[in-house]
Protein backbone atom coordinates (compact mmCIF):
# COMPACT_ATOMS: atom_id res chain seq x y z
CA UNK A 1 0.00 0.00 0.00
CA UNK A 2 1.09 3.51 -0.77
CA UNK A 3 1.52 5.59 2.36
CA UNK A 4 0.79 9.29 2.46
CA UNK A 5 3.09 11.15 4.81
CA UNK A 6 2.27 14.54 6.30
CA UNK A 7 5.87 15.61 6.34
CA UNK A 8 8.82 15.21 4.00
CA UNK A 9 10.96 14.37 7.08
CA UNK A 10 8.83 11.31 7.78
CA UNK A 11 8.89 10.25 4.13
CA UNK A 12 12.71 10.27 4.05
CA UNK A 13 12.93 8.43 7.37
CA UNK A 14 12.16 5.40 5.15
CA UNK A 15 15.60 5.71 3.56
CA UNK A 16 18.11 3.72 5.64
CA UNK A 17 21.82 4.55 5.70
CA UNK A 18 23.80 2.71 2.99
CA UNK A 19 20.80 2.60 0.62
CA UNK A 20 21.37 2.38 -3.10
CA UNK A 21 19.31 5.32 -4.26
CA UNK A 22 18.41 6.40 -7.81
CA UNK A 23 18.19 10.13 -8.56
CA UNK A 24 17.17 12.08 -11.67
CA UNK A 25 19.12 14.87 -13.42
CA UNK A 26 18.40 18.57 -12.90
CA UNK A 27 16.08 18.82 -15.93
CA UNK A 28 13.88 15.99 -14.63
CA UNK A 29 12.30 15.58 -11.18
CA UNK A 30 14.70 16.61 -8.38
CA UNK A 31 13.38 16.16 -4.81
CA UNK A 32 15.48 19.00 -3.38
CA UNK A 33 13.35 19.47 -0.26
CA UNK A 34 13.67 15.75 0.49
CA UNK A 35 17.44 15.96 -0.10
CA UNK A 36 17.67 18.81 2.44
CA UNK A 37 15.72 16.72 4.95
CA UNK A 38 17.99 13.71 4.32
CA UNK A 39 21.07 15.85 4.95
CA UNK A 40 19.46 17.29 8.07
CA UNK A 41 18.86 13.77 9.35
CA UNK A 42 22.51 12.92 8.77
CA UNK A 43 22.06 9.99 6.39
CA UNK A 44 25.39 8.26 5.62
CA UNK A 45 27.11 5.85 3.22
CA UNK A 46 24.60 6.24 0.40
CA UNK A 47 25.29 4.69 -2.98
CA UNK A 48 23.74 7.18 -5.37
CA UNK A 49 22.90 6.38 -8.97
CA UNK A 50 22.52 9.24 -11.44
CA UNK A 51 19.89 8.36 -14.03
CA UNK A 52 21.84 8.97 -16.09
CA UNK A 53 23.56 11.95 -14.43
CA UNK A 54 23.05 14.04 -11.30
CA UNK A 55 23.36 17.74 -10.59
CA UNK A 56 22.93 19.88 -7.52
CA UNK A 57 21.29 17.19 -5.39
CA UNK A 58 24.30 14.90 -5.90
CA UNK A 59 26.75 17.69 -5.20
CA UNK A 60 24.91 18.63 -1.98
CA UNK A 61 24.72 15.05 -0.70
CA UNK A 62 28.43 14.57 -1.42
CA UNK A 63 29.35 17.87 0.24
CA UNK A 64 27.37 16.94 3.34
CA UNK A 65 29.26 13.64 3.66
CA UNK A 66 26.20 11.46 2.96
CA UNK A 67 27.71 9.56 0.02
CA UNK A 68 30.09 6.60 -0.06
CA UNK A 69 29.74 5.70 -3.75
CA UNK A 70 28.43 7.46 -6.80
CA UNK A 71 27.51 5.60 -9.96
CA UNK A 72 26.76 7.98 -12.82
CA UNK A 73 27.46 9.06 -16.39
CA UNK A 74 28.27 12.55 -15.11
CA UNK A 75 27.89 15.03 -12.30
CA UNK A 76 26.88 18.26 -13.95
CA UNK A 77 25.41 21.55 -12.90
CA UNK A 78 25.21 22.80 -16.45
CA UNK A 79 26.02 26.41 -17.11
CA UNK A 80 27.20 27.05 -13.58
CA UNK A 81 30.50 25.20 -14.01
CA UNK A 82 32.05 22.12 -12.43
CA UNK A 83 30.17 20.59 -9.51
CA UNK A 84 32.30 21.94 -6.64
CA UNK A 85 31.79 19.37 -3.86
CA UNK A 86 31.95 16.40 -6.25
CA UNK A 87 35.17 17.69 -7.81
CA UNK A 88 36.72 18.23 -4.39
CA UNK A 89 35.61 14.81 -3.08
CA UNK A 90 37.20 13.05 -6.06
CA UNK A 91 40.41 15.03 -5.61
CA UNK A 92 40.55 14.12 -1.93
CA UNK A 93 39.53 10.50 -2.54
CA UNK A 94 36.63 10.66 -0.09
CA UNK A 95 34.07 8.97 -2.39
CA UNK A 96 34.13 6.02 -4.76
CA UNK A 97 33.20 6.75 -8.33
CA UNK A 98 31.71 4.20 -10.71
CA UNK A 99 31.90 5.93 -14.09
CA UNK A 100 29.28 4.87 -16.60
CA UNK A 101 27.66 6.15 -19.75
CA UNK A 102 24.02 7.26 -20.06
CA UNK A 103 22.58 4.43 -22.19
CA UNK A 104 24.30 1.76 -20.04
CA UNK A 105 22.63 3.14 -16.92
CA UNK A 106 19.27 3.27 -18.66
CA UNK A 107 19.83 -0.28 -19.98
CA UNK A 108 20.74 -1.60 -16.52
CA UNK A 109 17.52 -0.18 -15.12
CA UNK A 110 15.54 -1.53 -18.06
CA UNK A 111 16.94 -5.00 -17.38
CA UNK A 112 15.79 -4.72 -13.75
CA UNK A 113 12.41 -3.42 -14.95
CA UNK A 114 12.03 -6.53 -17.11
CA UNK A 115 13.27 -8.86 -14.39
CA UNK A 116 16.17 -10.09 -16.53
CA UNK A 117 19.85 -10.27 -15.49
CA UNK A 118 21.47 -8.06 -18.15
CA UNK A 119 20.95 -6.03 -21.28
CA UNK A 120 23.17 -5.85 -24.37
CA UNK A 121 24.33 -2.33 -25.27
CA UNK A 122 25.99 -0.94 -28.40
CA UNK A 123 29.06 1.28 -28.33
CA UNK A 124 31.41 1.29 -25.31
CA UNK A 125 33.97 -1.19 -26.74
CA UNK A 126 37.42 0.38 -26.75
CA UNK A 127 36.46 2.93 -24.12
CA UNK A 128 38.47 2.98 -20.88
CA UNK A 129 35.14 2.93 -19.02
CA UNK A 130 34.71 -0.81 -19.58
CA UNK A 131 38.21 -1.58 -18.20
CA UNK A 132 37.00 -0.44 -14.80
CA UNK A 133 33.54 -2.02 -14.86
CA UNK A 134 33.39 -5.55 -13.50
CA UNK A 135 29.62 -5.51 -14.00
CA UNK A 136 30.00 -5.05 -17.77
CA UNK A 137 31.01 -8.05 -19.86
CA UNK A 138 32.15 -8.20 -23.45
CA UNK A 139 30.33 -10.97 -25.30
CA UNK A 140 29.70 -11.94 -28.88
CA UNK A 141 26.40 -11.30 -30.66
CA UNK A 142 24.92 -14.84 -30.84
CA UNK A 143 22.69 -13.88 -33.79
CA UNK A 144 25.49 -12.52 -35.96
CA UNK A 145 27.11 -14.73 -38.63
CA UNK A 146 30.40 -12.90 -38.26
CA UNK A 147 32.18 -12.21 -34.98
CA UNK A 148 30.63 -9.08 -33.45
CA UNK A 149 31.50 -7.94 -29.91
CA UNK A 150 28.84 -6.43 -27.68
CA UNK A 151 28.78 -5.17 -24.10
CA UNK A 152 26.41 -6.80 -21.62
CA UNK A 153 25.38 -4.53 -18.76
CA UNK A 154 24.26 -6.11 -15.50
CA UNK A 155 20.78 -5.21 -14.24
CA UNK A 156 20.70 -2.23 -11.86
CA UNK A 157 18.21 -2.62 -9.02
CA UNK A 158 18.17 0.44 -6.75
CA UNK A 159 16.87 0.02 -3.22
CA UNK A 160 15.02 3.30 -3.55
CA UNK A 161 14.04 5.78 -6.23
CA UNK A 162 13.56 9.25 -4.79
CA UNK A 163 11.91 11.80 -7.09
CA UNK A 164 9.87 15.00 -7.14
CA UNK A 165 6.89 15.16 -9.53
CA UNK A 166 4.37 17.82 -10.57
CA UNK A 167 1.21 15.92 -9.54
CA UNK A 168 -0.04 13.04 -7.41
CA UNK A 169 -3.54 11.94 -6.54
CA UNK A 170 -5.06 10.71 -3.30
CA UNK A 171 -4.81 7.10 -4.57
CA UNK A 172 -1.03 7.38 -4.72
CA UNK A 173 -0.68 7.61 -8.50
CA UNK A 174 1.98 10.11 -9.61
CA UNK A 175 2.28 12.03 -12.87
CA UNK A 176 5.66 12.44 -14.62
CA UNK A 177 4.47 13.43 -18.12
CA UNK A 178 7.15 12.90 -20.75
CA UNK A 179 9.92 12.52 -18.13
CA UNK A 180 9.47 8.80 -18.36
CA UNK A 181 12.96 7.91 -17.10
CA UNK A 182 11.31 8.32 -13.70
CA UNK A 183 8.84 5.61 -14.68
CA UNK A 184 11.69 3.23 -15.53
CA UNK A 185 13.41 4.13 -12.24
CA UNK A 186 10.25 3.33 -10.27
CA UNK A 187 9.71 0.05 -12.15
CA UNK A 188 13.31 -1.03 -11.53
CA UNK A 189 13.58 -0.08 -7.85
CA UNK A 190 12.58 -2.06 -4.79
CA UNK A 191 10.88 1.04 -3.36
CA UNK A 192 9.88 4.44 -4.71
CA UNK A 193 9.41 7.52 -2.56
CA UNK A 194 7.93 10.65 -4.06
CA UNK A 195 7.43 14.28 -3.19
CA UNK A 196 4.88 16.15 -5.27
CA UNK A 197 4.08 19.74 -6.09
CA UNK A 198 0.27 19.66 -6.15
CA UNK A 199 -2.52 17.23 -5.31
CA UNK A 200 -4.48 16.27 -8.43
CA UNK A 201 -8.21 16.57 -7.91
CA UNK A 202 -9.47 13.19 -9.13
CA UNK A 203 -7.86 9.94 -10.25
CA UNK A 204 -4.93 10.33 -12.65
CA UNK A 205 -5.60 6.89 -14.11
CA UNK A 206 -9.18 7.70 -15.10
CA UNK A 207 -8.14 10.76 -17.13
CA UNK A 208 -7.22 9.57 -20.60
CA UNK A 209 -4.89 12.52 -21.19
CA UNK A 210 -3.00 12.00 -17.90
CA UNK A 211 -2.84 8.21 -17.57
CA UNK A 212 -0.03 7.61 -20.13
CA UNK A 213 2.32 9.87 -18.12
CA UNK A 214 1.31 8.39 -14.79
CA UNK A 215 3.18 5.90 -12.59
CA UNK A 216 0.47 3.80 -10.92
CA UNK A 217 0.49 3.53 -7.13
CA UNK A 218 1.51 -0.15 -7.50
CA UNK A 219 5.11 1.10 -7.72
CA UNK A 220 4.85 3.94 -5.20
CA UNK A 221 5.62 3.21 -1.54
CA UNK A 222 5.38 6.66 -0.01
CA UNK A 223 4.36 10.19 -0.89
CA UNK A 224 4.52 13.62 0.67
CA UNK A 225 3.40 17.03 -0.52
CA UNK A 226 6.30 19.46 -1.07
CA UNK A 227 5.29 22.73 -2.70
CA UNK A 228 8.22 24.26 -4.53
CA UNK A 229 9.92 20.95 -3.65
CA UNK A 230 12.45 21.10 -6.51
CA UNK A 231 13.75 24.56 -5.52
CA UNK A 232 16.36 25.86 -6.30
CA UNK A 233 16.49 23.47 -9.26
CA UNK A 234 13.47 23.93 -11.54
CA UNK A 235 10.60 21.58 -12.22
CA UNK A 236 9.60 20.89 -15.83
CA UNK A 237 6.36 22.58 -16.81
CA UNK A 238 6.17 24.34 -13.45
CA UNK A 239 9.01 26.71 -12.63
CA UNK A 240 12.51 27.46 -13.89
CA UNK A 241 15.69 27.08 -11.82
CA UNK A 242 16.39 29.89 -9.36
CA UNK A 243 19.57 31.00 -11.11
CA UNK A 244 20.42 33.62 -8.48
CA UNK A 245 20.27 31.07 -5.72
CA UNK A 246 22.30 28.55 -7.70
CA UNK A 247 24.98 31.21 -8.12
CA UNK A 248 24.95 31.72 -4.33
CA UNK A 249 25.42 27.97 -3.95
CA UNK A 250 28.28 27.93 -6.46
CA UNK A 251 29.98 30.76 -4.66
CA UNK A 252 29.61 29.27 -1.17
CA UNK A 253 30.30 25.64 -2.15
CA UNK A 254 33.74 26.51 -3.58
CA UNK A 255 35.25 25.60 -0.21
CA UNK A 256 34.37 23.09 2.47
CA UNK A 257 33.81 25.88 5.01
CA UNK A 258 31.61 27.81 2.60
CA UNK A 259 29.55 24.71 1.91
CA UNK A 260 29.09 24.16 5.67
CA UNK A 261 27.82 27.71 5.97
CA UNK A 262 25.48 27.07 3.06
CA UNK A 263 23.90 24.00 4.64
CA UNK A 264 23.72 25.72 8.02
CA UNK A 265 21.76 28.50 6.42
CA UNK A 266 19.55 26.59 3.98
CA UNK A 267 19.32 23.04 5.39
CA UNK A 268 19.61 23.28 9.15
CA UNK A 269 17.96 26.70 9.60
CA UNK A 270 16.10 26.99 6.35
CA UNK A 271 15.02 30.33 5.00
CA UNK A 272 11.78 30.29 3.05
CA UNK A 273 12.27 30.01 -0.69
CA UNK A 274 11.62 33.36 -2.32
Amino acid at each position, binding site marked *: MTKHFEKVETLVSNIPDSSKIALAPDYSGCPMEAIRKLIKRGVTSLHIIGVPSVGFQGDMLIGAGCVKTIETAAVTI*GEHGLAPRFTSA*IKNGTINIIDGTCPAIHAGLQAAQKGIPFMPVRG*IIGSDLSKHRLDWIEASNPFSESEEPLILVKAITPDITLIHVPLADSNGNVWVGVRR*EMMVMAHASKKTLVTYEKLFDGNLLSEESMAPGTIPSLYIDGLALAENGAWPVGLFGNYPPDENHLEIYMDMAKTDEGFKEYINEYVFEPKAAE
Partner: protein
Amino acid sequence: MSEVIKHEEMLISVISEMLNGMSHVAVGASSPIPGSAALLARANSLTDLRVSMLGSEEHNIFTNGGTELFDCAAQGRIDAFFLGGGQIDGGANINLVGIGDYPDTKVRFPGSFGSAYLYYLVPRVILFREEHTPRVLVPKVDFISAPGSSPENVNRPGGPYALVTERCVFKFDKKKARFRLESIHPGHSLEEIVEMTGFDFDKPSTISETKPPSSDTLKLIRGKIADEISETYPAFSSKLFGA
Protein backbone atom coordinates in the same frame (compact mmCIF):
# COMPACT_ATOMS: atom_id res chain seq x y z
CA MET B 1 23.45 46.55 -35.17
CA SER B 2 27.16 46.21 -34.58
CA GLU B 3 28.91 44.40 -37.42
CA VAL B 4 31.80 43.37 -35.17
CA ILE B 5 31.44 39.61 -35.21
CA LYS B 6 31.95 37.93 -31.84
CA HIS B 7 33.88 34.69 -31.96
CA GLU B 8 30.91 32.77 -30.55
CA GLU B 9 28.80 34.02 -33.46
CA MET B 10 31.48 32.87 -35.86
CA LEU B 11 31.49 29.39 -34.27
CA ILE B 12 27.68 29.15 -34.31
CA SER B 13 27.71 29.97 -38.01
CA VAL B 14 30.54 27.55 -38.85
CA ILE B 15 28.94 24.62 -37.03
CA SER B 16 25.53 25.44 -38.47
CA GLU B 17 26.89 25.09 -42.03
CA MET B 18 27.97 21.54 -41.20
CA LEU B 19 24.33 20.69 -40.49
CA ASN B 20 22.98 21.58 -43.94
CA GLY B 21 20.70 18.88 -45.30
CA MET B 22 20.37 17.02 -41.99
CA SER B 23 16.91 16.01 -40.87
CA HIS B 24 17.43 15.40 -37.14
CA VAL B 25 20.10 17.04 -35.02
CA ALA B 26 20.43 16.24 -31.31
CA VAL B 27 22.20 18.43 -28.77
CA GLY B 28 23.52 17.10 -25.45
CA ALA B 29 24.42 18.63 -22.09
CA SER B 30 26.35 21.89 -21.63
CA SER B 31 26.30 22.79 -25.34
CA PRO B 32 25.11 26.39 -25.83
CA ILE B 33 27.15 27.05 -29.01
CA PRO B 34 26.29 23.74 -30.75
CA GLY B 35 22.70 24.23 -29.56
CA SER B 36 22.57 27.69 -31.15
CA ALA B 37 24.12 26.27 -34.33
CA ALA B 38 21.42 23.58 -34.52
CA LEU B 39 18.69 26.18 -34.04
CA LEU B 40 20.31 28.36 -36.73
CA ALA B 41 20.45 25.41 -39.13
CA ARG B 42 16.78 24.80 -38.42
CA ALA B 43 15.92 28.46 -39.07
CA ASN B 44 17.79 28.30 -42.42
CA SER B 45 16.56 24.84 -43.36
CA LEU B 46 14.46 24.46 -46.47
CA THR B 47 13.35 21.05 -45.30
CA ASP B 48 11.94 20.14 -41.93
CA LEU B 49 15.01 19.96 -39.68
CA ARG B 50 14.21 18.64 -36.23
CA VAL B 51 16.25 19.68 -33.20
CA SER B 52 16.21 17.71 -29.95
CA MET B 53 17.98 19.68 -27.25
CA LEU B 54 18.68 18.13 -23.87
CA GLY B 55 17.32 20.26 -21.03
CA SER B 56 14.89 22.13 -23.29
CA GLU B 57 11.13 21.85 -23.06
CA GLU B 58 10.43 23.93 -26.19
CA HIS B 59 13.06 22.43 -28.49
CA ASN B 60 12.68 18.79 -27.71
CA ILE B 61 10.51 16.29 -29.49
CA PHE B 62 11.06 13.25 -27.25
CA THR B 63 8.24 11.76 -25.21
CA ASN B 64 9.88 8.59 -23.92
CA GLY B 65 12.20 10.04 -21.28
CA GLY B 66 15.97 9.87 -21.11
CA THR B 67 16.36 6.67 -23.13
CA GLU B 68 14.75 7.94 -26.32
CA LEU B 69 17.77 9.94 -27.55
CA PHE B 70 19.91 6.79 -27.32
CA ASP B 71 17.34 4.44 -28.77
CA CYS B 72 16.78 6.87 -31.62
CA ALA B 73 20.52 7.10 -32.31
CA ALA B 74 20.93 3.32 -32.32
CA GLN B 75 18.24 3.08 -34.99
CA GLY B 76 19.92 5.66 -37.20
CA ARG B 77 17.28 8.32 -36.58
CA ILE B 78 19.79 11.01 -35.56
CA ASP B 79 22.05 12.51 -38.21
CA ALA B 80 24.29 14.77 -36.17
CA PHE B 81 25.40 15.22 -32.57
CA PHE B 82 28.09 17.17 -30.70
CA LEU B 83 30.74 16.07 -28.26
CA GLY B 84 33.52 17.92 -26.48
CA GLY B 85 36.32 16.88 -24.20
CA GLY B 86 38.58 18.02 -21.41
CA GLN B 87 41.21 16.43 -23.64
CA ILE B 88 41.01 15.49 -27.32
CA ASP B 89 43.86 13.75 -29.12
CA GLY B 90 44.99 13.40 -32.73
CA GLY B 91 43.09 10.14 -33.14
CA ALA B 92 39.88 11.93 -32.07
CA ASN B 93 39.78 10.02 -28.79
CA ILE B 94 37.95 12.12 -26.22
CA ASN B 95 38.36 12.34 -22.46
CA LEU B 96 35.44 13.63 -20.41
CA VAL B 97 36.57 12.01 -17.16
CA GLY B 98 39.77 13.59 -15.86
CA ILE B 99 43.49 14.18 -15.96
CA GLY B 100 45.91 11.79 -14.24
CA ASP B 101 45.79 8.11 -13.36
CA TYR B 102 42.16 7.06 -13.20
CA PRO B 103 40.44 6.75 -10.78
CA ASP B 104 42.86 8.97 -8.82
CA THR B 105 42.50 11.87 -11.22
CA LYS B 106 44.28 15.15 -10.42
CA VAL B 107 41.63 17.11 -12.27
CA ARG B 108 38.14 15.70 -12.50
CA PHE B 109 35.70 16.56 -15.32
CA PRO B 110 31.93 15.93 -15.11
CA GLY B 111 31.95 12.46 -16.74
CA SER B 112 31.45 10.64 -20.03
CA PHE B 113 27.70 11.30 -20.43
CA GLY B 114 26.45 9.38 -23.51
CA SER B 115 29.70 9.76 -25.46
CA ALA B 116 30.68 6.09 -25.20
CA TYR B 117 27.58 5.32 -27.24
CA LEU B 118 26.59 8.24 -29.44
CA TYR B 119 30.15 8.58 -30.84
CA TYR B 120 29.71 5.10 -32.33
CA LEU B 121 26.19 5.49 -33.63
CA VAL B 122 25.57 9.02 -34.91
CA PRO B 123 26.96 9.39 -38.46
CA ARG B 124 28.14 12.98 -38.11
CA VAL B 125 29.61 13.76 -34.69
CA ILE B 126 31.05 17.26 -34.55
CA LEU B 127 33.66 17.72 -31.85
CA PHE B 128 33.51 21.18 -30.38
CA ARG B 129 35.92 22.65 -27.88
CA GLU B 130 36.45 26.38 -27.76
CA GLU B 131 39.79 26.28 -25.96
CA HIS B 132 42.51 25.43 -28.48
CA THR B 133 45.67 24.92 -26.41
CA PRO B 134 48.19 22.10 -25.95
CA ARG B 135 46.59 21.20 -22.61
CA VAL B 136 43.29 20.36 -24.35
CA LEU B 137 44.51 19.14 -27.75
CA VAL B 138 46.96 16.52 -26.52
CA PRO B 139 49.09 13.77 -28.16
CA LYS B 140 47.22 11.09 -26.20
CA VAL B 141 44.27 11.44 -23.83
CA ASP B 142 44.70 10.25 -20.21
CA PHE B 143 41.35 8.43 -20.28
CA ILE B 144 39.34 7.33 -23.30
CA SER B 145 35.69 8.13 -22.66
CA ALA B 146 35.05 7.26 -26.29
CA PRO B 147 37.54 6.29 -29.01
CA GLY B 148 37.78 8.12 -32.35
CA SER B 149 37.88 4.89 -34.31
CA SER B 150 37.15 1.20 -33.76
CA PRO B 151 38.22 -2.18 -35.18
CA GLU B 152 36.18 -3.36 -38.15
CA ASN B 153 34.19 -5.98 -36.27
CA VAL B 154 32.68 -3.34 -33.95
CA ASN B 155 29.30 -2.07 -35.08
CA ARG B 156 30.09 1.57 -35.72
CA PRO B 157 28.06 3.48 -38.30
CA GLY B 158 29.05 6.77 -36.66
CA GLY B 159 32.07 8.73 -35.58
CA PRO B 160 33.95 12.02 -35.73
CA TYR B 161 33.36 14.36 -38.66
CA ALA B 162 35.14 17.56 -37.65
CA LEU B 163 36.74 19.37 -34.72
CA VAL B 164 35.84 23.03 -34.30
CA THR B 165 37.86 25.27 -31.96
CA GLU B 166 38.34 28.98 -31.31
CA ARG B 167 41.15 29.01 -33.90
CA CYS B 168 40.23 26.66 -36.73
CA VAL B 169 38.27 23.77 -38.22
CA PHE B 170 39.80 20.30 -38.58
CA LYS B 171 38.11 17.54 -40.59
CA PHE B 172 38.60 13.95 -39.50
CA ASP B 173 40.01 11.54 -42.07
CA LYS B 174 38.44 8.20 -41.12
CA LYS B 175 40.80 6.09 -43.23
CA LYS B 176 43.93 7.59 -41.71
CA ALA B 177 42.28 8.16 -38.30
CA ARG B 178 43.85 11.64 -38.26
CA PHE B 179 42.76 15.26 -38.42
CA ARG B 180 43.36 17.47 -41.46
CA LEU B 181 43.34 21.25 -41.07
CA GLU B 182 40.35 22.50 -43.04
CA SER B 183 40.15 26.24 -42.46
CA ILE B 184 41.63 28.89 -40.18
CA HIS B 185 39.40 31.49 -38.53
CA PRO B 186 40.12 35.13 -39.47
CA GLY B 187 42.87 36.62 -37.30
CA HIS B 188 44.65 33.31 -36.69
CA SER B 189 47.62 31.71 -38.46
CA LEU B 190 48.97 28.27 -39.33
CA GLU B 191 52.10 28.84 -37.19
CA GLU B 192 49.94 29.68 -34.19
CA ILE B 193 47.76 26.60 -34.73
CA VAL B 194 50.79 24.30 -35.00
CA GLU B 195 52.18 25.81 -31.81
CA MET B 196 48.91 25.53 -29.89
CA THR B 197 48.04 21.97 -30.97
CA GLY B 198 49.52 19.11 -28.97
CA PHE B 199 48.93 16.51 -31.70
CA ASP B 200 50.21 16.16 -35.22
CA PHE B 201 47.75 16.74 -38.07
CA ASP B 202 47.71 16.88 -41.88
CA LYS B 203 48.21 20.26 -43.56
CA PRO B 204 46.97 20.61 -47.13
CA SER B 205 49.05 22.89 -49.39
CA THR B 206 46.31 25.50 -49.50
CA ILE B 207 44.25 26.21 -46.43
CA SER B 208 41.26 28.51 -46.67
CA GLU B 209 40.07 31.11 -44.22
CA THR B 210 36.89 30.22 -42.34
CA LYS B 211 33.95 32.11 -43.84
CA PRO B 212 32.38 34.54 -41.37
CA PRO B 213 28.58 34.74 -41.08
CA SER B 214 26.73 36.97 -43.55
CA SER B 215 24.90 40.00 -42.19
CA ASP B 216 21.58 38.17 -42.64
CA THR B 217 22.90 35.22 -40.63
CA LEU B 218 24.20 37.58 -37.93
CA LYS B 219 20.80 39.20 -37.70
CA LEU B 220 19.19 35.80 -37.31
CA ILE B 221 21.69 34.73 -34.62
CA ARG B 222 21.19 37.94 -32.63
CA GLY B 223 17.40 37.86 -32.92
CA LYS B 224 15.56 34.56 -33.25
CA ILE B 225 18.41 32.28 -32.14
CA ALA B 226 19.39 34.42 -29.12
CA ASP B 227 15.77 34.23 -28.03
CA GLU B 228 15.34 30.48 -28.64
CA ILE B 229 18.59 29.44 -26.91
CA SER B 230 17.83 31.57 -23.83
CA GLU B 231 15.25 29.02 -22.66
CA THR B 232 17.92 26.35 -22.11
CA TYR B 233 21.01 28.55 -21.66
CA PRO B 234 19.88 31.81 -20.04
CA ALA B 235 23.34 32.80 -18.76
CA PHE B 236 24.97 32.20 -22.16
CA SER B 237 22.30 34.12 -24.01
CA SER B 238 22.31 37.10 -21.70
CA LYS B 239 26.11 37.32 -21.63
CA LEU B 240 26.51 37.07 -25.39
CA PHE B 241 23.45 38.87 -26.66
CA GLY B 242 22.32 40.86 -23.62
CA ALA B 243 18.95 39.15 -24.05
